[in-house]
């Protein structure tokens, strides 16, 4: 699982039947200092309460579909929680040359 920021929504009228009623959000994966890392993704919202601007964590692969009410849906990324806080160890500050 990884941190991500919700940056948009996706509206699709014509969908494969398994995706009917599934809310789709555009997310930007983040590193542990909440800086963008990697490409943006479309993820299904399994908590039904995430919205643009929120810090969330998501699960990828087959487990994403497990998060949905019907686990046999074509979903490969799902938001499974809204983050209240991330606390890092003291002294763990962002540095420029971090991998």
């Amino acid at each position: 699982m990884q941190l991500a920021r919700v940056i948009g929504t996706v509206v699709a009228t014509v969908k494969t039947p398994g995706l009917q009623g599934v809310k789709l959000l555009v997310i930007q994966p983040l590193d542990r200092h909440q800086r963008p890392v990697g490409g943006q993704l479309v993820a299904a919202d399994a908590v039904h309460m995430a919205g643009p601007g929120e810090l969330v964590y998501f699960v990828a692969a087959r487990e994403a579909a497990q998060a949905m009410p019907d686990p046999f849906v074509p979903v490969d990324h799902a938001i499974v929680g809204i983050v209240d806080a991330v606390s890092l160890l003291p002294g763990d500050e962002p540095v420029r040359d971090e991998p």
Partner: protein
Amino acid sequence: MKLGRVAGTVVSTINAPAFDGRTLLLCDLLDPAGKRAGGYLIAVDSVGAGAGETVLILDEGTSARQVLGAPGAPIRTVIVGIVDAVTGDAVTTEKPGTPRAITGTATTKEPHPKEPHPKEPRRRRHGGTRSDADHG
């Protein structure tokens, strides 16, 4: 499985029901020498790992659900061990001839220790009849 170091915690109240009551730890991925390999994972704790500890991370869904005893849960990443030491050639690739182990707190923790029930079982009175004490 992967080696990681617990770098922090993630707190979440609105989440998928399978995550209720579970601890989420943010773990940096490590190479065998104990250096950051780049990237991190948010993992569900199953052993009681603490901040700064080197841990063993399982990143595969079926096994993860088996470890947690949660079939059907959307969980893929679980901490399954606390690493005491890593030894061997992989650890000494940088400086040959100087074996070196990952520094970590050597702890042996029982997973999910069950606390004894604080109250003693109540002695029940016989319903509607006199108790044994009254006979004496």
